[in-house]
């Protein structure tokens, strides 16, 4: 079978093919590894490629299939964001400071995927410690978006961030799916930029155990895939209560994949009027209206709603997240693991290690976080931000009393060029203006490819749901996916 065909498969289709022995997991995995070899030098989507291990896992999957044993992901090759600790495989979090770090344990989410038979191709590139919206802050170099502007096909565009490597790999068909994490939009914005589907589930749906922490009250793992159904399949394996994470929710994991086929007829869809920014491209507004029309055509009732504290989301987030990160990153001190720069005394060792190990964006956020937690500023910043966060949550709670889901753009722009927005952090931060409020509220949000802009770049629409109602999110996203009927493909892709 042609490599190009194998790498084009959806996870749902590949499961069927493996089951019917149309191809082996080894063939599937080899096709992806070959595609990685060909494209990763350009895309830089993987920091670490674990080809040998992947083939061993593929062989094990084939052996299981031969015995008639099928787990939900048996033999499916995936990319794992380099924020998930993987036992015996270097885990860098995109940072120089963890360059030599090989975890002696497997994160719960990646362990769940392995339990369900998945094959790991390698560790996906990302913004350093998941701090960024462009993948430009990675210590291992930027990731290229496989999509090109029609007018300017030479310019390398960013894949978004922080899970840029994951989104780029899935879009370029060098992985069938990928894990990501989303703190303020780190799954949804790159999904939108790369024309793939990605969901940030409800906070607490996936265990955070073994995921390098950025902002603990916001971090949440989720999947990337090329279809909504594939995301549902992956999330079904990733999710579940974990007693090792106190914030993990002890709720049953429903059949997410089944929810993708649910009718949206009769659902009430809210359109939040605050999700518009000055200078937002017309294409995005047009696509949003198109999405509304599709859902209406599918029988949903669309109503205007207001989430008045949306405008405070970004500023509040940039207090809460840095505060938590400044504390979470204190453990990277060169004493027990990771990179160490020798110093003349303990303090000197800390300063040299952290100065050499952390990039500019991480340093910026650690400083912001340290500042907002400092004596004399704590009440004015952190306490106040928590109060506003409660109001943002109340917006959602009150709105969800009236509607079943919300529809909004995922990001205020399409993918931009590498190097753009680098001069002004605030401009970069604005990328997450539409994803942050739902992160702050802990509710699920999914980006689904909905169309292309005038430059031929993908744009996503965002479906936001009630806490632990990812099923409705999947149903609505799948309806948009069906209606959009996108056939465009990224220029850089396996088999092209």
């Amino acid at each position, binding site marked *: 079978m042609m490599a190009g065909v194998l790498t084009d498969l959806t996870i749902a289709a590949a499961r069927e093919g493996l089951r019917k022995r149309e191809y082996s997991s080894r063939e599937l995995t080899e096709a992806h590894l070959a595609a990685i070899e060909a494209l990763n030098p350009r895309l830089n989507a993987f920091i670490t490629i674990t080809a040998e291990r992947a083939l061993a896992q593929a062989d094990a999957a084939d052996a299981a299939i031969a015995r008639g044993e099928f787990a939900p992901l048996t033999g499916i090759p995936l990319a794992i964001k380099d924020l998930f600790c993987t036992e015996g495989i270097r885990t860098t979090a995109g940072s120089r400071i963890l360059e030599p770090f090989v975890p002696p344990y497997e994160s719960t989410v990646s362990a769940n995927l392995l339990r369900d038979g998945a094959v790991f191709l390698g560790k996906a590139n990302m913004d350093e410690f998941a701090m960024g919206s462009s993948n430009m802050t990675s210590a291992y170099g930027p990731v290229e978006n496989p999509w090109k502007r029609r007018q300017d096909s030479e310019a390398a565009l960013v894949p978004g961030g922080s899970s840029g490597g994951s989104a780029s790999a899935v879009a370029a068909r060098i992985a069938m799916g990928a894990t990501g994490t989303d703190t303020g939009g780190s799954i949804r914005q790159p999904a939108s930029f790369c024309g793939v589907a990605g969901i940030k589930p409800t906070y607490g749906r996936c265990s955070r155990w073994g995921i390098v922490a950025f902002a603990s009250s916001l971090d949440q793992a989720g999947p990337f895939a090329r279809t909504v159904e594939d995301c549902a399949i992956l999330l079904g394996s990733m999710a579940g209560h974990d007693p090792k994470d106190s914030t993990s929710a002890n709720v049953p994991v429903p059949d997410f994949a089944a929810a993708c086929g649910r009718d949206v007829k009769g659902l009430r869809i809210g359109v939040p009027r605050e999700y518009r920014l000055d200078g937002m491209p017309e294409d995005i507004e047009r696509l949003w209206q198109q999405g509304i029309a599709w859902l209406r055509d599918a029988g949903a009732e669309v109503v205007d709603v207001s989430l008045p504290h949306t405008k405070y989301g970004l500023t509040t987030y940039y207090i809460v997240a840095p505060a*938590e990160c400044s504390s979470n990153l204190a453990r990277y001190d060169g*004493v027990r*693991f990771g990179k160490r720069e020798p110093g003349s005394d303990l303090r000197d060792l800390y300063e040299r290690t952290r100065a050499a190990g952390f990039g500019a964006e991480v340093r910026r956020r650690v400083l912001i976080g340290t500042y907002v*937690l400092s*004596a004399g500023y*704590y009440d004015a910043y*952190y306490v106040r931000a928590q109060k506003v966060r409660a109001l943002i949550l109340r917006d959602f709670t009150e709105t969800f009393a009236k509607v079943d889901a919300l529809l909004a753009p995922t990001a205020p722009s399409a993918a931009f060029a590498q190097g753009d927005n680098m001069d002004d952090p605030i401009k970069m931060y604005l990328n997450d203006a539409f994803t942050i409020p739902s992160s702050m509220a802990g509710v699920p949000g999914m980006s689904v490819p909905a169309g292309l802009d005038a430059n031929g770049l993908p744009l996503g629409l965002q479906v936001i749901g009630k806490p632990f109602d990812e099923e409705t999110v999947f149903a609505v996203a799948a309806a948009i996916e069906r209606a959009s009927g996108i056939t465009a493909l990224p220029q850089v892709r396996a088999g092209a």
Partner: protein
Amino acid sequence: MSYALEGSTGTWEIVVGLEVHAQVISKAKLFSGAATDFGAPPNTQVSFVDAAFPGMLPVINRECVAQAVRTGLGLEAHIHLVSRFDRKNYFYADLPAGYQISQYQHPIVGEGRVEIELADGSTRQIGITRLHLEQDAGKSLHDQHPTKSYIDLNRSGVALMEIVSEPDIRSPEEAGAYLRKLRSIVRYLGTCDGNMDEGSMRADVNVSVRKHGEPYRTRCEVKNVNSIRFVMQAIEAEAKRQIEVWEGGGAVEQETRLFDPGRGMTRSMRSKEDAHDYRYFPDPDLLPLVLDEGWVAELKSKLPELPDAKKRRFMQDYGLPAYDAGVLVAEQATADFYEMVAKGRDAKIAANWVMGDLFASLNRQGRTIADSPVSAEALGKLLDLMADSTISGRIAKDVFETMVETGDDPAAIVEAKGLRQVTDTGAIDTVVDTVLAANADKVAEYKAGRDKLFGFFVGQVMKAMAGKGNPALVNEALKRKLA
């Protein structure tokens, strides 16, 4: 007379509050499953959570929470059904995460009290401000290598209860009494072993001085004092230093100090420039700790009888004076021992024997009641031998010493040594007659009015009987014959 220090400008009162760090008795650490045994080889009881590896998360240990609640109940304190954990951020090599998980704003236990007893028999209430749970840090070993420091993370993450008192303490003696009482309570509860020499109980001492009737003046905190004696010395040394500062026209600056027991003085621990800003904020890895009221009630119903209640009962049921009851209840093992001895016997005699001969022998041998060479059962049997007149009180002392040495049964010792008391009046009469005959001159003097010679005759008879004569019968026979 209340405690006061004399300065050149008059009399000063001292004001003391104590923050006691009590290590929780639990198999596992506060937020990890690693073991907590004291004295294990370095870095053998460390989980990835304790070493703060990337992605590791804390999970609260239910037993540690139960221990804190038990302790709170033992301090007659308010139990907060909702409490919260905060992060206290600072960098140090033995603090792997760069923060300590503690309860800053919302402790698990609120206001309570401890009653202390002083040497003059008076009692005082010392207020408890709060009790909160927190993790211990690891240990830095600076003296193992000329240029390196070693880090032992065995203690990292072990549960501590920080018990904060109100500034109600007014003398070193009260501080000592408070610490002893607190230690007694946690030992009764089984929530902390109270061993200050192993570091499982440590005190930070807040000291200030003032003239009578004044509001509080600036206090200093003397950190990490590890014995009751040192706490008492540190208070006096620090108070005297502060009085000198004030009387020298200076002002005491709020700071953290260390007590140097060798030199009997405190010294400044860190300068102002090093003052920490701990940047406390709620730990996002942990949900608020919510206790079920029924669970707290269940813990309460299973609490053991605590020292104060036991003391009241000992006074009431056994008719003991307050002092004796206080001594007997200080350690649960002593109280249990005493009760076994006293059960069905004369409670006051039992108390005298436990507090007298038994304590003296334990002190002599450097033993504790737990490994007493004489069991409560054996001591009880000895008292029975006295009660039924098998032996006299004097002989009992000898038998007891033999019991301490050999651990033998008292009845067996009495039999083997032929110490059984003579109650045969005929035999006693015979000895009395012999003694009186041999001392005819003394008999004449007695009859002429020298009454106090009666004791001499008793002594002579007992001597002749090797101490085994029943004292009452000897007395009676002598009185009869001398009449």
